[in-house]
């Protein structure tokens, strides 16, 4: 446990000391939030049933949160360490290799909390309200950050398997189909049949639905439970695969 704390602290320090790695990742979510609201809010006024009396910004916020927390930053940090030799230094230390993964995930959690808070504050500035109140807002931030932690496994997997910076960077592209094959602009019911099938098969849809429910509807436990379940399962599977990959590294 000590080694996870030490490596986590180091990774968090890295986030703080290298804002250039985090700040750009905020641009896309904030840009999409502003553009989507500007273009679509008149189409879907607050009287629209699925908005539950709120503006379109409340519907879009979870999508922007997904954009903000889903990054390949940990994977890139890992592959950079592999590249410059520090990774070997860690591997040759008498620690569990999994600690290296968990240390990175700790930094993802901290980064996720920070960027989710910032995006939420921007949405609040656009006039959004969180129906579930301050506790709901906190849960929203934590769940978004946890999803970021779960998603980080993809970047780390690519990093460990390819050991290539470009390939790891490109792993971010995986997120686009995952994000856009969801009810990101309108609810499931308003999607075309094919898109609805694809969206319902996409686990990210349920994360967005859960986060959205906290903003628009209040405490809808079944949606929250499914959201938490998806985050948990995704996190466990991707982290397990990452741990397996690091255990098998050069073996």
């Amino acid at each position, binding site marked *: 446990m*000590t*080694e996870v704390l*030490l*490596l986590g602290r*180091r990774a968090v*320090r*890295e986030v703080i*000391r*290298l804002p250039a790695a985090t700040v750009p990742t905020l641009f896309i979510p904030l840009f999409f939030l502003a553009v989507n609201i500007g273009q679509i809010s008149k189409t879907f006024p607050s009287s629209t049933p699925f908005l539950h009396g709120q503006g379109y910004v409340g519907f879009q916020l979870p999508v922007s949160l997904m954009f903000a927390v889903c990054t390949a930053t940990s994977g890139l940090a890992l592959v950079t*360490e592999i590249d*410059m*030799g*520090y*990774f*070997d*230094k*860690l*591997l*040759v*230390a*008498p*620690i569990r290799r999994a600690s290296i993964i968990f240390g990175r995930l700790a930094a993802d959690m901290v980064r996720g909390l920070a960027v989710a808070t910032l995006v939420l504050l921007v949405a609040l500035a656009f006039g959004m309200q969180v129906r579930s109140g301050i506790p709901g807002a906190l849960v929203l931030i934590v769940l978004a950050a946890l999803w970021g932690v779960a998603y980080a496994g993809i970047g780390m997997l690519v990093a460990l398997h390819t050991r290539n910076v470009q390939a790891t960077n490109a792993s971010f592209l995986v997120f686009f189909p995952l994000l856009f094959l969801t009810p990101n602009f309108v609810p499931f019911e308003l999607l075309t049949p094919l898109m609805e099938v694809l969206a319902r098969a996409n686990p990210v849809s349920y994360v967005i639905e859960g986060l959205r429910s906290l903003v628009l509807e209040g405490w809808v436990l079944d949606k929250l439970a499914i959201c938490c379940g998806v985050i948990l399962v995704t996190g466990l599977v991707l982290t397990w695969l990452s741990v397996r990959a690091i255990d098998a590294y*050069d*073996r």
Partner: protein
Amino acid sequence: MDAVRRRRASPSPPISIILDSGRRHTALSTIRSPRSGSYQGRPTLRRHAGPPLGCEPVTPIAPTHFPAAPARESDGENPNAIRARELQRTFRGGVDAVRGIDLDVARGEIFGFLGPNGAGKTTTVRMLCTLLPPTAGSAHVGELDVVENPAAVRRRIGVALQEIGLDPLQTGRELLELQCGLYGIVGAQARARAQELLELVGLLDAAERRTKTYSGGMKRRLDLASALVHSPDVLFLDEPTTGLDPASRLTIWEEVRRINAQGTTVFLTTQYMEEADQLCDRVAIIDRGVIVAEGTPEELKSQLGHDVVSVELDGADLAATQAAIGELEGLERVVTGRDSLALYLEDGPGSIAEIVRRLDGARIRVGAISVARPSLDDVFLRATGRRLEGDEENHGGRDA
């Protein structure tokens, strides 16, 4: 340095006779014999003062020409710091990086693993450090098998690999304290140990700076310090001075000697002959994944059993010069380069006068004549047929 340099008027060339150019700096004068565990006298090493390079190719001699490695033990307790048997690593695609090598490194010695790029040095180190599993064979650090007990091996060893493993965003102090933590040294103990190591490698002034601002030499010293946080029994240094300027290289050498003097066994890979000669109690030369020679530097050099007289042609005709010199007493062979001639003789200093006389007689003016004891580079040349530290100019000669 007992060197005598004499310059004569034209047409005779300047002559440089280097009888014993420098002695090994380390205080070590004896080593523990890997075979018996007892101490034995150790010959003084002479610094490399070989002939101008550029004398190849020559036909490689069989590795058996060189002294065999110390007696091997097939099983039982390992009295050595490192032992490997038939160690082998084949990479995907069938590349045989290491092809069944045996190693015995005695406790407390500095062992040099010498070879050109791609010879298998780093692959061997990575196997011994538990970073890479062998394809076949076995390796032990102390009594611990590197495959069966990697975690315990890692507690025993310190490693500074060829690529300097530093996190650029941390300060030197933070990095050492983290490294301490990874070895179970935390809190005040970690802070004290980091301070001690920063002092040891002379980085106290730069301790609060991020490592990305360090020079190459500073990075290498910090990397060395980070390998020492847990006072390892065995220290692996993979080309610790590659890319460093001469001053930084000397600093690293001094630190390696100091670490070794405290009882740490050092396994050092290098592609620099002088480094091996200056630092190492024993060396093994690896080429294309096979150990081609092993012994103390002095043993290896004395196996060649001759001096090397180098004639720098400086524009003189090669064939005419060679013809003028002709046959000499004790001449073993002549190796020619583009603008040089290397004569391997039993008695180099004693032959100089005759060589000069013959050149004078033929009215041939050459640039310089020097005589030197064989160097490890000569050992490498004899074992592999190639120069280790040669450059492009060294590839145009012929074996005469």
